[in-house]
């Protein structure tokens, strides 16, 4: 009985819930705001998928043709063919080399920040990285175009590379005289994805318990041995996540790449030749085509490919993280 009284008194302290409280309007409003992102993704998937399939449904182009290497979309000339292989290959090649350049550098930088750098150095480098993230992609493209491309064609190509034994062979292949190339695109991208890979791997290294480091060092290992044999394996899933995120950013980057790769819709024979990517070709052609014509439909198919790449990487990151949680 005594308990009942206490409960009654506690109940009387609170007013009976009014209508407004029962509906809990604020909860509904904030929920709608958060759930709007689901609506955006659903709409985006629906529209891009629908547009992307028009090339097959409406224009009757076969999947075999889309995966062929010939890009001849202009209906005024003969031999109409919508092969997007050069664009997919270009995206894969440019992104791949960018990751090869950027991953060691970024993971090294993450290790520097988490294991080596004194507080003052961290206090300088971390804000610098944040500024890096903020530099717009057109500015990276412009830097690539005005500094990197001339450097590659004049200084590097004419003065250094040609005289070297094996490198010279590669660089004397046709197509590099201008500097607009697969290599230029990869170099620009590698700098652009550096902050992404660095910050995600940095978080992974920071999450490693301090005991692992002290334990390893107590066994008489050097810091580098600890990093190589203990820290890098322990943070592997985080580093992998970082690389996937960097890959997504690189594959989706449009304007900076478009400005430096030369935009030639053919499969490149060497890293020194011009290429084109999915994003680059969409950017260039979308404005010159008419809504509903097969040429533009092919561009929508290419953006569907980009969308599939990015959603796949989200799922991939989730799988990697789930495995980490599980182990």
């Amino acid at each position: 009985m005594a308990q009942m009284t206490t409960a009654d008194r506690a109940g009387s302290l609170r007013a009976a819930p009014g209508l407004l409280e029962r509906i809990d309007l604020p909860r509904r409003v904030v929920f709608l705001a958060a759930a709007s992102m689901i609506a955006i993704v659903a709409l985006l998937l629906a529209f891009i998928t629908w547009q992307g399939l028009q090339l097959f449904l409406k224009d009757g182009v076969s999947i075999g043709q889309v995966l062929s290497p010939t890009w001849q979309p202009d209906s005024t000339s003969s031999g109409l063919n919508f092969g997007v292989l050069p664009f997919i290959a270009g995206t894969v090649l440019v992104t791949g080399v960018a990751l090869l350049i950027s991953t060691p550098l970024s993971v090294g930088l993450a290790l520097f920040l988490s294991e080596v750098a004194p507080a003052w150095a961290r206090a300088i480098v971390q804000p610098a990285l944040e500024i890096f993230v903020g530099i717009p992609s057109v500015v990276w493209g412009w830097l690539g175009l005005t500094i990197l491309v001339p450097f590659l064609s004049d200084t590097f190509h004419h003065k250094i590379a040609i005289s070297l034994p094996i490198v010279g062979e590669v660089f004397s292949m046709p197509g590099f005289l201008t500097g607009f190339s697969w290599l230029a695109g990869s170099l620009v991208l590698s700098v652009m994805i550096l902050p992404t890979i660095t910050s995600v791997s940095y978080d992974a290294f920071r999450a490693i318990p301090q005991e692992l480091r002290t334990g390893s060092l107590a066994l008489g290992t050097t810091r580098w041995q600890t990093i190589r044999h203990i820290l890098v394996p322990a943070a592997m899933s985080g580093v992998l996540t970082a690389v996937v995120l960097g890959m997504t950013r690189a594959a989706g980057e449009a304007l900076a790449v478009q400005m430096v790769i030369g935009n030639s819709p053919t499969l490149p024979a060497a890293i020194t030749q011009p290429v084109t990517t999915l994003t680059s070709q969409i950017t260039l052609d979308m404005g010159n085509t008419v809504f509903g014509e097969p040429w533009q439909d092919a561009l929508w198919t290419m953006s569907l490919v980009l969308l599939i790449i990015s959603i796949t990487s989200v799922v991939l990151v989730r799988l990697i993280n789930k495995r980490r949680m599980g182990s």
Partner: protein
Amino acid sequence: MTVGASTAQRVPDGSHQSLHRKASRGSILADRAATVALWGTGVFVLLLLGAIIAHFAIAAVGVVSPGFVLDDPSDTVLGGILPILWNSIYILALTMLIAVPIGILGGIYMAEYASDNALTNAIRFAEESISSVPSIVVGLFGLILFVDTFHMGFTALGGSLALTMFNLPLMTRLAEQALRAVPQEERSASLALGATKWQTIRHVVVPLAIPGLVTAVILTAGRVFGEAAVLLFTSGTGTPAHYDFSFINFNAPSWAMTSPWSPFRPATTLSVYIWKLNSEGLGAFKNQIVDGSAAILIAMVLTFNLGARLIGRVLTRRLTAA
């Protein structure tokens, strides 16, 4: 750790030396080399950023002047970028007007209400998906939705809505982090005083999270300001020659299409302008204009970034001292 400790106990006295197994000469050299290389990465990043800032500072000399900022573009002389800069600021303001309330409200749901269920998981998945969708694809989505479906044409409003969709995940996540950083005790104390959950959020949690929320807004604004690919096919690439800022007669028939205050006109921003000048490659002063515009963009990025830090710090001090 535990293995090492137990081994140490089992080792008989007198053989302590074996515990301190000296690292071999080779491994010490490798360690030194690695240290140098890791320092090298840090130095590399700083040098690169320094070089970029210095490059644009030098390039800006002789281009960026009050006239460059305040004049209309010209074909015959260097001219200025006033209408384009205005568009950048206009689209930024319009985007933030839409994105900030939705982002903060969404952040409140994720931080205060969301429980660990499938729905929350779906929201997180959507958040991550939009973040990883290429900006050009978001721009294309805007093209189908606003230009092709709603027949709005290229408009500042369409650009702002596309930018909102693109930056909502960032804004929501930063707002959520800011709200989560508020200590749990504050909520408990408020609820114990009889406040409802919403009263607690409105009068306790959100005010305490203001420094973090302000930082979130500024960081999002920085990203919106530099974005170009989202805007290419939503707000368009046409270069306005001149804006009549006194055109505020909303009833005039041409207002919607020509007034700089109208959200229903095409609006080329600074980033889009750089891309457009470069791809069209026309004009004797192209390089100078792009250098000057890029210098202004970099300066804005620096301002947003340092501003976010500074204002966040000042607000934290003021609010915690009060």
